[in-house]
């Protein structure tokens, strides 16, 4: 009976969701429209329209009749073609219309799709052209025309001018036209999906609330519940909020990746315009790194650091809540541009001077503003975790008895916190350049584009390690526990991480091997970058050795950890190709790079996150996850992941460039990517869809676990650190601050006694008279 009831409830919920889904496509929030029309005719003749050229369209009535064919005459006056002596290479045009169909009359005009026309090579010698347009049955038609006026020299030269015009013609029943659903614009798709995800998230929250206590499903008990979540300073609640935000944006970033992949599935695709494509890869990178990976890591850190070191909470709980709440508002600012169709289109690196140029989208300003808030958030997080780990370890836990995950978070935060101010200052400079008009990156006034690159990569490279180190920590914990051994070479693991942390600051120049930076600096960073392989290698070999003579229990998290070892090793090996400078001049900014960093970001960080979810979810929720669904998730996810990124290596080497709206296959006229190789792009796209949807298995698994999972014991896997000591889920506060747990050490030494250096340092920190004063 109970079951049937819950079945009906689920059915009702699904119906509501379905209704919400069907409503969502109508949510058209594009007030300013999108400049997505093509300018194919004009791109080679200067960046800015010139008012000296006057395009015109003749042959259009004031109101068109339904489904009638009109012959339009396109022409222009002005510009250098009038003064040209040669009777050839005089001009060109591009005409786009939003409804009706265009057809060519002569050989001088070519048609793309049915709504865009341009001149052919033959038509290049004319200044006016004719084209047929068949009007639609109703509505109105907007024509956008761009014409080039060229000087007859046969090439693109600065003298050449172009200009644009647009006109709208009303149809027969313009006033009473039925409201039509617009064709699927990718921006609308994205916005719709974001809204749908929001609705889904809200529904899941509501459903969880309902399932936790069906009787209390009313406003009186809901409002304190939601207020608790909005105001909580408890590290576990804030951690959960981080997880929710992180997974939400992982989905949003994934949708953008899919839209990018649809565009790239076949050559010459026009699913996205250049504008949209550029915005999407920018937003994809920004979202994935700053709004997905970092919050997910912070979710783990929030949940686990106090538990692992035996502290009752973080050092500064309210600052911790502040770190979190800065993020959703930062995300709002970053996404503001998406909703107005002018999202930042500068790449996640935001290279100067493009980032301050007027050709960059207006959303770039708020993109920078949002990231300034993220910098503030990361700084606060850094202070909090460093203070917590430095100062709040339980008795008996010296530095060298900290769990490796705690170590990884410590080093990651130290790096982040020392590097991110540089980028923050860079962002403030960019924000001020774009708003009040300072001139930090205005080249005409002496601004230096490379300064931005330096400030960015001084942060950007440590950031790369900031997101991978916590994954190292997770894998160290999981592999050791699964193999039922203590991790091999604990101390060398710590030194390796510290080594990575130090080297991180002196290698960033390898992102600028082709930037025109001084050759000496490039050479030095080539040497240091090579060095990164050593500590990373130590870690991988230590993990492998950990399994030796162990007793590996195969759980979902074990599988993800082994999968991580495979993908991360591959990513590490491909990484070794870049510091080799003579090779990097070819590989830089190609799909080889894309393949490499996805192997370490997704195959490293995201796999690490998945691994951690399966490992610690029982601790967090108090319920065991479904192992069968976990296995399914691993198999589909791991295989499709490799399906996406493995072929990219080869494509990159063959000539597929990163951040390109399209790619070129070898034709009779020129060689680029061989056609048979290029067809892997379609395979990649299909794999991307598979990978995207495979992750919903985990989401379903998590929901299922929370609602109906088996109760978890305190230590389901046999780990040793403090988090396994408290019940699942842990109480609040996790440990009694006046009576913290004490760590014992199975090794025969007392490591908690500070060294002589430590004693000297402590005596510095606490002057004697001070102590007396306080003790009064």
């Amino acid at each position, binding site marked *: 009976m109970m079951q049937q009831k819950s079945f009906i409830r689920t059915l009702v919920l699904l119906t509501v969701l379905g209704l919400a889904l069907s409503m969502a496509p109508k949510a058209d929030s594009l007030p300013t429209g999108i400049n997505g029309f093509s300018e194919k005719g004009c791109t080679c003749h200067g960046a800015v329209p010139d008012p000296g050229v006057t395009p015109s369209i003749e042959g259009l009535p004031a109101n068109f009749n339904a489904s009638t064919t009109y012959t339009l005459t396109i022409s222009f006056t002005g510009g250098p073609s009038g003064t040209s002596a040669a009777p050839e290479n005089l001009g060109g045009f591009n005409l786009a219309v939003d409804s009706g169909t265009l057809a060519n009359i002569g050989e001088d005009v070519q048609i793309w799709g049915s709504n865009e026309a341009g001149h052919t090579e033959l038509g290049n010698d004319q200044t006016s052209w004719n084209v047929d347009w068949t009007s639609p049955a109703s509505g109105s038609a907007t024509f956008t025309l761009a014409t080039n006026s060229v000087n007859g020299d046969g090439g693109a030269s600065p003298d050449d001018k172009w200009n644009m015009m647009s006109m709208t013609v009303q149809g027969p029943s313009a006033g009473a036209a039925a409201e039509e659903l617009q064709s699927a614009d990718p921006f609308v798709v994205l916005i719709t999906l974001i809204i749908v995800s929001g609705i889904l998230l809200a529904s899941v929250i509501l459903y969880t609330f309902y399932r936790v206590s069906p009787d209390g499903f009313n406003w009186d008990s809901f409002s304190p519940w939601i207020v608790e979540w909005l105001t909580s300073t408890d590290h576990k609640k804030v951690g959960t909020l981080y997880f929710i935000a992180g997974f939400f944006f992982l989905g949003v970033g994934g949708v953008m990746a899919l839209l990018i992949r649809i565009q790239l599935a076949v050559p010459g695709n026009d699913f996205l315009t250049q504008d949209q494509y550029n915005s999407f890869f920018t937003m994809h990178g920004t979202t994935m790194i700053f709004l997905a990976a970092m919050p997910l890591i912070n979710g783990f850190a929030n949940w686990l650091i106090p538990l692992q070191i035996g502290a009752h909470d973080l*050092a500064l709980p*309210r600052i911790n809540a502040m770190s979190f709440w800065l993020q959703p508002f930062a995300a709002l600012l970053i996404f503001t541009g998406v909703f107005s169709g002018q999202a930042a289109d500068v790449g996640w690196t935001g290279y100067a001077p493009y980032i301050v140029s007027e050709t960059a989208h207006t959303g770039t300003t708020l993109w920078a503003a949002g990231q300034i*808030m993220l910098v503030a958030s990361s700084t606060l997080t850094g202070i909090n975790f460093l203070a917590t780990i430095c100062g709040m370890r339980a008795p008996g836990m010296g530095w060298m008895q900290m769990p490796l995950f705690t170590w990884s978070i410590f080093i990651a935060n130290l790096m982040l916190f020392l590097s991110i101010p540089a980028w923050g200052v860079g962002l403030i400079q960019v924000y001020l350049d774009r708003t009040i008009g300072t001139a930090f990156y205005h080249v005409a006034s002496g601004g*230096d584009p490379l300064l931005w690159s330096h400030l960015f990569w001084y942060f950007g490279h440590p950031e790369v390690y900031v997101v991978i180190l916590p994954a190292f920590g997770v894998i160290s914990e999981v592999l050791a526990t699964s193999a039922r051994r203590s991790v091999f070479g604990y101390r060398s693991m710590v030194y390796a991480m510290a080594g990575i942390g130090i080297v991180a600051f002196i290698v960033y120049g390898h992102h600028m091997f082709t930037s025109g930076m001084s050759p000496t600096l490039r050479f030095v960073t080539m040497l240091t970058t090579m060095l990164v392989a050593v500590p990373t290698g130590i870690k991988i070999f230590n993990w492998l050795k950990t399994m030796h003579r162990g007793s590996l229990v195969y759980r979902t998290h074990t599988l993800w950890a082994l999968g991580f070892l495979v993908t991360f090793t591959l990513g590490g090996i491909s990484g070794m190709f870049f510091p080799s400078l003579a090779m990097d001049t070819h590989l830089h900014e190609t799909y080889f790079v894309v393949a490499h960093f996805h192997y370490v970001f997704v195959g490293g960080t995201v796999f690490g996150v998945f691994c951690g979810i399966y490992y610690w979810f029982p601790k967090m929720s108090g319920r065991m996850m479904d192992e069968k669904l976990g296995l399914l998730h691993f198999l589909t996810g791991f295989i499709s992941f490799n399906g996406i990124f493995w072929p990219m290596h080869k494509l990159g080497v063959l000539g597929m460039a990163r951040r390109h709206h399209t790619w070129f296959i070898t034709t009779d006229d020129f060689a680029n990517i061989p056609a048979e190789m290029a067809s892997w792009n379609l395979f990649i796209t299909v794999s991307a869809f598979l990978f995207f949807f495979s992750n919903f298995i985990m989401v379903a698994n998590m929901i299922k676990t929370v609602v109906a999972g088996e109760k978890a014991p305190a230590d389901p896997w046999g780990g040793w650190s403090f988090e396994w000591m408290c019940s699942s889920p842990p109480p609040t506060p996790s440990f009694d601050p006046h009576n913290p747990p004490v760590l014992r050490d199975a090794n025969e030494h007392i490591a908690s006694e500070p060294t002589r250096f430590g004693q000297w340092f402590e005596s510095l920190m606490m002057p004697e008279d001070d102590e007396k004063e306080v003790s009064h």
Partner: protein
Amino acid sequence: MSGDYGHDDHGHHASPWGPHDWSHGAPHNSFAPLIMSAGFALFLYGFANVFVGGEVADLGALSGVMLGLIIVTIGLLVWWRQDMTFDGVYEPKATGAPFRNIDIRKVSMWIFLMSEMMVFTSLFSTYIRYRLGIPNCNDVFLSGEWIEGTSVVCFEPAAHLIASSWFHLAPGAVNTFALIISSFTVVLALKTAKMSDKKYSDKYEVEMENVQAHRSRKVAVFLGATLFLATLFLTLKMIEWFVGFPTPGPLTNLNHGHSEIASLYTEGYRINADTYQHYAYDTSYHDGKDIPPDSALYSMMQAGTHPGGVMMADIRVGASTFFVTTGTHGVHVLAGMIGLAYMTLKGLRGGWGPSNAVTIEYFGLYWHFVDLVWVLVFPFFYLF
């Protein structure tokens, strides 16, 4: 896991709007983070709508900027309201080496200052890169490699303008002393607050029962003095940037005969100054007596190969580094002032004593840092 530390165990349902009962441990729920984040976002959003590319695009969005600031203030007030009752009862000490027995807040403050150091390091890096990388305006002027009416890109250090009349230096110099004295007053406040009841009573001949109120008021006076000096600092800075000030009558001679000291703004030292002109770059100023005879310009003028006139310069980068670096420092002073306002208020309400005097110490760490940064900013931007 039950004990006397969990506020939930006591039916202690504090409101997330504060005030907080600190004897029950770590801060409880608070709306402040949510409100302040929203305020920051609104501020940045509004600001980006008011100014676009150096132009005022939409003055109406100024309301968004103001609203954002108001919301941040509300959030701050909520935060403070929860802290107002803090009397040092809950002051967790670090347990792990090497910070054992040191207040967690102190550790955090030092860590925070580390990141602040990186902020100013980055700003100074920008300054040094441009200062050394872009030719100095004076060098360009003397090289003669310019023609009248066409802007040349060069770096004009604010110090050059400031040095052109020693009165220009006055605000900066007074400010330096104001900040150094304010560091001292903070220390006095701390020393007073830390004084034990008995010692205080003996020293100031105050009845034991009045010590707390008397002492706290005295602390408030010192904190108020600090606040005053900080206000003086920012006021003088605004005068120097935007307002200018009249020269006292008899001293006009020392100011090249001008009765007013122009602000940097009216001197044309602006972030959008791409056609900057200054009398120092005018060959006819002082009849050219200021042009050193060993300069290329002098030889050119003598040989008649240089027409002379006024050099026009694009000094946007130099002005940007000056205003943004000193401005960032100013924002730090402003943040300190907000903190000081709260602390003074708390002092007037009798809130400071030996048990919580460390809060003043931790504020002092920040304040000394801001002071230290000024000691670096001053020579780099005002003297050199």
